[in-house]
Structures are given as structure tokens and as C-alpha cells.
């Protein structure tokens, strides 16, 4: 019964997700819900590599930051057209993935994690020091854009609606991709890349595709953050903040679109509200991480799905063995 309910909800998942976020918005405020949705896009982008391909990155803020700064800089120096800036931001994310990908995707494990961290550090330095004349360095820079038709992004309702639509689009896109052959290949690579090669696949191409998709979506999230905040600072490319998206994946459950959303919202709820009650809330987060790693590896969504399966199993066993029910 529960399994059937879950299957129905999955069939209309975009609608369910839309309704849940629309219900959440008035509870936590519109501004916060915009932040939550953009962060969920970032988590989805990250989970493509971590959850599906099994590659943990410690420097994914680089790609978010590339999008954020590309967006702001194009608005400042090219044209104050938000959609052109978005296109440039997304293109910058893809280009970054294309440039660093050939080095990064050939690595695995700790190498993959640390090479991304190193690149993130490099990006952080460039923004903070080397290009500070343009980026504003530590002070950052503001980003304002002219109205384009009905899209006046100084109006937070418009920002909310736009971000809401973008999030649903990204969820749809990621879900389609992960349910396709690409998703199967990524999970195969995660489990045993050598065997995927022996089937006849050039795994480098597949990994590059996933990596570029992840960096592109991360840059997209970065640009959306700047639409929301109208300014960009080095915090959007700070390597220390990469841990946030890792936490979110772990909380929600890696390797699942629903897990990424649950984790994104879960992490944001913790980081937004817990500081009101606990001064050292990061310590609480550390304890949560330990619990997740040692006891609840599947995350929230993983345990929900397993619980539903367990609840339905006695009913299924009774159906297949009718004499048991008598």
C-alpha cells in the first residue's frame, strides 16, 4: 500500500515537489525559500558526481563561484541583461568543466577530492587577489540588471517564481538524465569502471559529460544566487563552504534526486534555524555527520524508501503465500 502510494507520488513527483516548496515558502519566508531552492539546484549538480558517479569533490564551490562571478562581471562590463549574463555564467561553468575536466576526471578517490580543492583554492585566490581590480576582492561587487519584459529581478516575487521554475526544470532534467542510459553508466562507473570499459564504453567521455553537466548546473546555481542577493563576494567561491553541499548530500541521501532535495532543504533548515538556539551549531552538524557516516549512510530518502519497502513486504509475502494468511 505504502509502496503503491510512493509509486504514485513518484509518477507526479514534479507536482509534489512544486506543492511542497509552495507550502514551505510562507512558513520560512519567500527570501529563505529562494535560497533553499537555489541551494537544492547546487546539491543536485553535486550529487551527479558524488551520488551517481561516486566521485567526492572538496572544491565544488569553484564552479558555483565561476557562475556567480561570470554573472556579475558580465552585468558590470558587458551588458546589464540578466539573461545574457545567465547564459555567460552557464557557459563559463561549462567551459571550466571542459578545461579542468581532462585532468580532474582521470583521478579517483582522494586525488579527485583534493584536486578539486586545489583548483577551488586557485579560483579563490584569483578572485580575492589577482583579479581583485575587477571582482572587488574581499569586498565583492554588486550586480544589478535592467528589467527585461516582465522579469524585474528587483521584485522578490519575480525572483521566487523564476527560481521556482528553474529548480523544477533542473529536477526534471536531472531526473531524466539519471533515469536514462547515462545514469546507468554513471552508476556502473561508480561500482566498477574497468568493467564498463570492457563492455566497450569510453568511460573518459562519460565522466567528462557528467562532470561538465555538474559544473554547468553549479554555475547556474551561482548565477541564481547573485540574482537573489544582487551582490557577489568571495564567500561564493570559498573552498571552506564546499562542505555544505557534501553535508546536504549525506543528510538527504546520495544518488537520488529526492535525496538531494531533502538534503538541500534539511541542511538549510539546520543552518538557518539552529544558530538561534545553539551557539556552536556547527558542532551539532559534526555530530550529525558522524551519525550519518556510521549509522545512517543512506540518508533521509534512503531510509524512507527502505522503510516503505519493509512495510509492504509482509503484505507481498502474504499475497504470494496465501496459506500463510489463513
Amino acid at each position, binding site marked *: 500500500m505504502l509502496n503503491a502510494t510512493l509509486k504514485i507520488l513518484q509518477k507526479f513527483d514534479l507536482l509534489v515537489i512544486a506543492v511542497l516548496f509552495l507550502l514551505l515558502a510562507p512558513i520560512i519566508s519567500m527570501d529563505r525559500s529562494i535560497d533553499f531552492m537555489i541551494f537544492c539546484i547546487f546539491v543536485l549538480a553535486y550529487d551527479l558526481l558524488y551520488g551517481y558517479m561516486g566521485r567526492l569533490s572538496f572544491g565544488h564551490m569553484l564552479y558555483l563561484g565561476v557562475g556567480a562571478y561570470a554573472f556579475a562581471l558580465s552585468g558590470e562590463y558587458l551588458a546589464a541583461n540578466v539573461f545574457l549574463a545567465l547564459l555567460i555564467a552557464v557557459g563559463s561553468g561549462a567551459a571550466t568543466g571542459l578545461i579542468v575536466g581532462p585532468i580532474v576526471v582521470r583521478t579517483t578517490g582522494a586525488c579527485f577530492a583534493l584536486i578539486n580543492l586545489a583548483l577551488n583554492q586557485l579560483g579563490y585566490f584569483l578572485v580575492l587577489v589577482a583579479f581583485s581590480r575587477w571582482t572587488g576582492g574581499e569586498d565583492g561587487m554588486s550586480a544589478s540588471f535592467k528589467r527585461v519584459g516582465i522579469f524585474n529581478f528587483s521584485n522578490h516575487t519575480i525572483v521566487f517564481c523564476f527560481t521556482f521554475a528553474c529548480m523544477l526544470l533542473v529536477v526534471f532534467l536531472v531526473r531524466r538524465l539519471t533515469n536514462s*542510459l547515462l545514469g*546507468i*553508466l554513471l*552508476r*556502473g562507473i561508480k*561500482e*566498477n569502471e*574497468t*568493467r*564498463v*570499459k*570492457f*563492455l*566497450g*564504453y*569510453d*568511460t573518459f567521455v562519460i565522466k567528462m559529460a557528467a562532470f561538465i553537466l555538474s559544473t554547468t548546473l553549479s554555475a547556474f546555481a551561482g548565477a541564481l544566487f547573485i540574482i537573489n542577493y544582487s551582490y557577489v563576494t568571495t564567500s561564493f567561491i570559498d573552498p571552506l563552504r564546499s562542505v555544505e553541499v557534501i553535508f546536504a548530500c549525506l543528510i538527504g541521501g546520495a544518488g537520488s534526486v529526492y535525496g538531494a532535495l531533502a538534503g538541500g532543504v534539511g541542511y538549510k533548515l539546520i543552518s538557518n534555524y539552529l544558530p538561534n538556539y545553539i551557539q556552536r551549531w556547527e558542532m551539532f552538524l559534526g555530530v550529525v555527520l558522524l551519525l550519518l557516516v556510521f549509522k545512517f549512510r543512506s540518508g533521509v530518502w534512503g531510509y524512507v524508501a527502505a522503510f516503505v519497502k519493509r512495510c509492504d513486504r509482509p503484505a507481498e509475502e502474504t499475497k504470494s503465500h496465501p496459506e500463510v494468511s489463513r
Partner: protein
Amino acid sequence: MLLSVDRINVFYGSARVLSEVSLHAKHGEVVSIVGRNGAGKSTMLKTIAGFLRPLTGAVKFDGEEISGRPPDQVARLGVRYVFQDKRVFTKLTVRENIELAAHAAKVRLIDAIDRVAQVYPKISMFLASKAGGLSGGQRQLLLIGRAIVGSPRLLLVDEPTEGLAAGAIEEVLRALELLRAEVSMVIVEQNLSVVSRFADRIYCMKEGHIATELSDLADVRNQAYLETYL
């Protein structure tokens, strides 16, 4: 000649594991490689499949040099490898395992499932199940079935009966028997009863080199005779 391995030398680091090894397989032939543990049998298959690169010598498949080419390129030429460890993609469903092979071979999924069913008729019962839940024998049949999707020209099979119960061994051997008319095979096997039943020719390996080649069918079918070479 379908497969020609000509005086290859393969190293693991500084240790030579294959020394001046030559073998060949004709179209439609089943060639077996036997030998004790550590003789270099699996290394030979891995070299042919592209997992290892020979330092010297050449591997040719249907006249085309393939030594040093990556495994995915070798696979696309029509060489498929069935590993010894019976490792399927455990977290994928059986259908997804087959789908990977289908897409790589550019065949429809439904045709790929039918192909796998030729060696493992019961496969349709397990399509939605995670492949990790299959038994050892079922995994081996899935791997063999998956390897023949797209009609490869050469199958490299590494110890297909190792670790299997008697019933499962029979099923695997029946599957290989079905396939021998369609695809050439190089089978590494320690079970001499299997070797003597299937092989057209046998290479006996010892300490990284070919000790003997047996091509007389009477010798090949004589299990007691084969045992003298181990």
C-alpha cells in the same frame, strides 16, 4: 587467423609475467589455456583484451594489431571478456546490466534480453531484481549472456566454472556448448574435464610461458593425458 598472439612479453612492474608467449585461434575454434595457479593464464587474457600492454610482441585480431589498445576499443572490435570473479554490477538491476551491453553493441534492449535468454532461459524472471541478489551460477550465466550481446567474434572466458556447484557448472557448460557454433573462444580453465570436453586445441602454460601446445584431438580429449602436463 582470428587471433594471433606473437611472442609477447608482459610485465607487472619489473616482474616479467609472460615471456615470449605465442598462441593463435582460428575462426570457429575453441582454444583452452591450462596451467597451475600463477602460470599467467589470466594475464594472457587480460593482455589480449587490452587491460595490459605487452612490452614487446604483437596481438592481432582478424589481421588488425590490437596490442596496447584500450579495453573499450578492443571490445568494440568484437572481443568480449568474461571475468573470473563473476562480478556483475550488483547495484544495477539485471535489465540495466543487459542494457549496458545492448547499448554498447548497438542492439535493441529486447533483442539483447532475447540473446541472454538463449544461454539463460530464466533471465526474464529476474530482470527487475538487483543483479547482486543472483547466485554465483546465475551471475556467470548473466555475464556470458551479456558478453554475447551483439554477436562478438571472440569470447575470452576466464575460469567459467570456478567456485560453482555441480548443477551450475552444467548450466554454464551447456551455455558454452550452445555458443561454440557461433563464436570463437579462448577459455582459461583449471577443470580438465571441462577442457577435454570443449577444446579444439590446448595450450599448457607454465611460469609465464607456453610449455606445450596440444592440437591432436585424441590428446585433447584425453583428460588423464592432460593431467601429465600440469
